[in-house]
């Protein structure tokens, strides 16, 4: 009895939280960022942290474990409490706003949500350069994980060529931007005024993606006749060929790498591309062709008998995945402003595979979680230096043993139902029902 009473306020809280729409959470996020701006630095000093913890305190986890309780306190005070209270308090308001937006048009509603999210993320990251870099790299990791998941999860192949696609995109777009807008010793003066650059930069990325798709033909065409291990080898050989080719191309610096990319991949640019990538891949896998992918994976013969054009499905998927890997590679090159072929080798492959399989196969949500989780985790483990590469594999093996398809497998999302207001409409829909009961 007493236990029941103790449970009640919690249950009330839970049902209240269930009524918070996505917009409410986003408002909470903005509020937390504002709180951090206002009281973050003094609070961190008061807690003995010295300065504001950069990544929710995970960066301190191994660097100085004694500070972890303070970091936790900071996290509760600055993030959890503001997010929770603002989300709860603004719940009716947020629901009404979400309803209005929805009535206006679902597209507008989605765009507004994304914009609010971006506002929060941007102002959170602006606190220092490290956060900006980590956010950019995390967004790129999500793009890469998602595009690799298309082939390895949704289509069920074991493709190892993703670093190769990345490298193609990275080098193509770097060469284009440097040749056209920056100029270098080797390429001579810029061919176009550099003021045009930021506007044509997306085009350079798209060309990079297309070149990566072209390279993907090398893997896609053999996939008509073979799959599984042989395709894995072809894709692996492709990756090593690309790496070796770049190492031998003196025009782009060979093994020394290529630098001098303009600084155009700001947080906004990367964010827009990442959102476009997630949205496009999410709707691709939910389309008829996306379902055909699963059919090809689970039984190619049966799929063929059910009128699935397996060749077209495989071709489109490989090229689509490679395109996004190429775009992400191009962005990566302009974020780091330096690329070298060694960065697109087996180590990168292991990282990408780890993100995909950690997050979950056949899953958009899982890919996002895998990319973000892996990046946070590897930042947390950075102080451990080489032991990082013992802990990460051990963890992955454990995940594989206990959840062989990854943590959040088989999960896509529907953007429109995500941004729908909660609580209010169900109550309204419930009204005639209740009236009838009376």
């Amino acid at each position: 009895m007493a236990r029941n009473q103790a449970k009640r306020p919690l249950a009330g809280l839970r049902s209240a939280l269930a009524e918070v729409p996505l917009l409410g959470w986003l408002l909470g996020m903005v509020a937390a960022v504002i709180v951090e701006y206002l009281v973050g630095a003094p609070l961190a000093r008061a807690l003995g942290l010295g300065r504001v913890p950069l990544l929710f305190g995970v960066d301190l986890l191994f660097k100085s474990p004694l500070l972890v309780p303070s970091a936790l306190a900071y996290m509760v005070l600055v993030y959890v409490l503001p997010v929770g209270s603002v989300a709860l308090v603004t719940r009716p308001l947020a629901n009404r706003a979400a309803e209005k937006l929805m009535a206006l048009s679902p597209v507008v509603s989605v765009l507004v949500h994304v914009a609010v999210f971006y506002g929060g993320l941007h102002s959170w990251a602006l606190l220092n350069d490290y956060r900006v870099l980590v956010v950019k790299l995390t967004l790129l990791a999500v793009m890469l994980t998602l595009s690799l998941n298309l082939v390895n999860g949704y289509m069920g192949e074991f493709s190892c060529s993703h670093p190769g696609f990345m490298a193609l995109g990275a080098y193509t777009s770097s060469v284009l931007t440097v040749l056209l807008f920056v100029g270098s010793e080797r390429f001579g003066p810029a061919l176009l005024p550099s003021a045009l650059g930021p506007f044509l930069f997306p085009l350079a990325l798209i060309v990079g993606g297309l070149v990566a798709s072209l390279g993907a033909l090398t893997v896609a065409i053999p996939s008509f006749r073979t799959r599984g291990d042989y395709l894995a080898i072809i894709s692996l050989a492709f990756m090593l060929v690309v790496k070796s080719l770049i190492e031998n191309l003196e025009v782009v610096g060979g093994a020394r790498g290529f630098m001098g990319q303009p600084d155009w991949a700001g947080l906004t640019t990367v964010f827009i591309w990442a959102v476009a990538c997630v949205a496009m891949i999410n709707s691709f896998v939910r389309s008829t062709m996306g379902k055909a992918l699963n059919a090809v994976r689970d039984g190619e013969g049966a799929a063929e008998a059910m009128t699935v054009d397996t060749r077209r499905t495989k071709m489109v998927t490989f090229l689509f995945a490679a395109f996004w890997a190429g775009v992400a590679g191009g962005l990566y090159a302009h974020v780091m402003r330096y690329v070298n072929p060694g960065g697109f080798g087996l180590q990168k492959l292991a990282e990408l595979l780890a993100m995909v399989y950690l997050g979950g196969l056949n899953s958009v949500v899982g890919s996002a979680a895998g990319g973000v989780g892996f990046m946070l985790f590897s930042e947390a483990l950075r102080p451990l230096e080489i032991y990082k590469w013992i802990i990460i594999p051990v963890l992955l093996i454990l995940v594989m043993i206990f959840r062989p398809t990854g943590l959040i497998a088989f999960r896509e999302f529907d953007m429109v139902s995500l941004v729908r207001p909660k609580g209010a409409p169900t109550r309204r829909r419930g009204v005639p029902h209740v009236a009838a009961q009376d």
Partner: protein
Amino acid sequence: MNVFLQSVVNALQWGSFYALIALGYSMVYSVLMLFNFAHGDIFMVGAYIGLFVSTALVTLGASGVLVLPNWLILVLTIILAAILTSFVGMLVERVGYRPLRRAPRASAALTGLMIGIILQTGNLALLGARRRSFPTLIETTTFEFAGVTVTNTKIVIVLVSILLMVALHQFVRRTKWGMAMRAMAYDFVVVPLMGVPINTIAALTFGLGSALAAVAGILFGLAYPVLEPYMGILVGWKAFVAAILGGRGSVLGAGLAGFLLGFIEIFVALLFPSTFRDLIAFSIVIVILTFRPHGFFGEAYSARLRL
């Protein structure tokens, strides 16, 4: 002509390493239907174990406790290192593969990759980034036949590998254990019902493959006496390519394809700048697999088989 013959000799030696490692891949594949991606790093572990065993034996000899001739040290090193490494292989199977036998195959492949990374990093963490050199167990003598120089190391390497390949082939063909392995490769469900202990056979397969990798590692140490923790990665992946080229699960094919890959690499390095070696070798692999997607001795792929 002389250059050609010289390259043939070099290619035989270089191909021996690939062939020995590819055999391990192929055996595990034929029994368990999965590739042990940690195999390249087991090769590295084998080389290091060989290094420690031989250094210990040489030190014992120098201190006068147990003076052995060099050839005996080599033989003992090979045997001891093979046994110890086979335990490492069985451990890998027990920890990384047995719990995943019913999981999707890609998950097992990923586990293998991760075990490989653990082995590399573990080595780096335990022994440091210093490169270590293998003791010289064979005093190099050089013979000349018609302008071709052949060292006794090369002869030993090629002979030992061919001997081991033949022995393995006989083991798989003639013994009861070999028969059980072949049966498991044939059918995974009925064979345990016939009283074949599949866990033991799986462990045995991993152990044998790892022992071969250890021998390859020691031979590699004889020819190129500098060891480092990442030495297994590229060699391992190339041997994996050889195993696939040979046709998955075909022991004979893996051996031959290992030598073929050795020939391709040596001759590419002969005709082009040596930085083009990987580029051309892997391009050839892509071309071969595009036209013959099931390797030389493998079964052709058909969508119907998967139903």
